């Protein structure tokens, strides 16, 4: 019975989509893909912007405090004021300066500065895309 009805239904003319519909669909999917990429980029950018704008000044303050509390400024000023002694004892001086370096503060500041530079670079390279998306979203 099913076959008979299937045969009967072959008499019906199927509606034909326009020739360009396939391309339109592929293009719409492509556009969606780009939109999704831009959205991800924008969220990444905003995240980096927030994190780096908070972390950079904080890590800078932390670095300055650590430099002040360590003896590095004392060793450097002694080395500069008495250059002859510094040259004579350069190995001990260098070791003392290296030992007193505020490594944690320097690393944290370096990372947050790197993040800030990367965020700025990201914005400069993709500003048209990011601004375009933002304007489109708020329009």
């Amino acid at each position, binding site marked *: 019975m099913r076959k008979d009805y*299937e045969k009967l239904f072959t008499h019906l003319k199927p509606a034909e989509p326009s020739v360009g519909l396939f391309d339109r669909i592929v293009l719409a999917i492509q556009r*969606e893909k780009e939109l999704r990429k831009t959205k991800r980029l924008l969220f990444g950018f905003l995240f980096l912007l927030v994190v780096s704008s908070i972390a950079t000044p904080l890590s800078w303050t932390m670095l300055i405090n650590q430099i002040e509390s360590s003896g590095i400024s004392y060793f450097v000023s002694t080395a500069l004021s008495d250059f002859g002694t510094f040259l004579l004892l350069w190995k001990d001086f260098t070791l003392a300066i290296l030992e007193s370096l505020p490594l944690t503060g320097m690393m944290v500041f370096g990372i947050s500065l790197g993040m800030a530079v990367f965020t700025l670079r990201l914005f400069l390279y993709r500003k048209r895309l990011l601004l375009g998306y933002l304007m489109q979203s708020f329009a």
Partner: protein
Amino acid sequence: MDRSDQQLVASYLKGDENSLKVLIKRYLKPIYNFVFRYIGSSQEAEDITQGVFVKAWRNLKKFDQNRSFKTWIFSIAKNSCIDFLKKKKTIPFSEFENKTGRNVLLETLVDNAPLPNQLFEQVNITKILTSAIEKLSPQYRMVLFLRYNDHFTFREIAEVLNEPLHTVKSRHRRALIQLKKLLIKL
């Protein structure tokens, strides 16, 4: 050799862009026809069909590959049609009235009833069948089309329409009885 839908989905998710195009090509006509039958306008059917494929692409990662892709995409199409019809229904008919109270749309609506001479010309089976099917209720029409035009099983129809299997089977039986009656009358 033709790859199955599941293979194509898996291949696309692994990064083969062409698999998606093959899937779209495979389902473009059936989905368009399904939507066209539901909506009845070719322009709107094209827009909805485009939306169906975009939605399917968006949710492809969530698609359970143990399920049938065919029923999955047809359910997306059905839901899109329902959403479209709901939106369309929210426009009150009175909005077409102008300031003087004249309803321009009402005045320009065409009477779809065939003229006697047109009826006389409807001698070939296509016309008779089309006319009979058009007289069926949309629910009956959909079940028959899915069964005999799109070659769905009852289980697949139930999945697409989100109805119990026995409801689909009894609806199918009633639709056939009604179709037979209509064909005899015509």
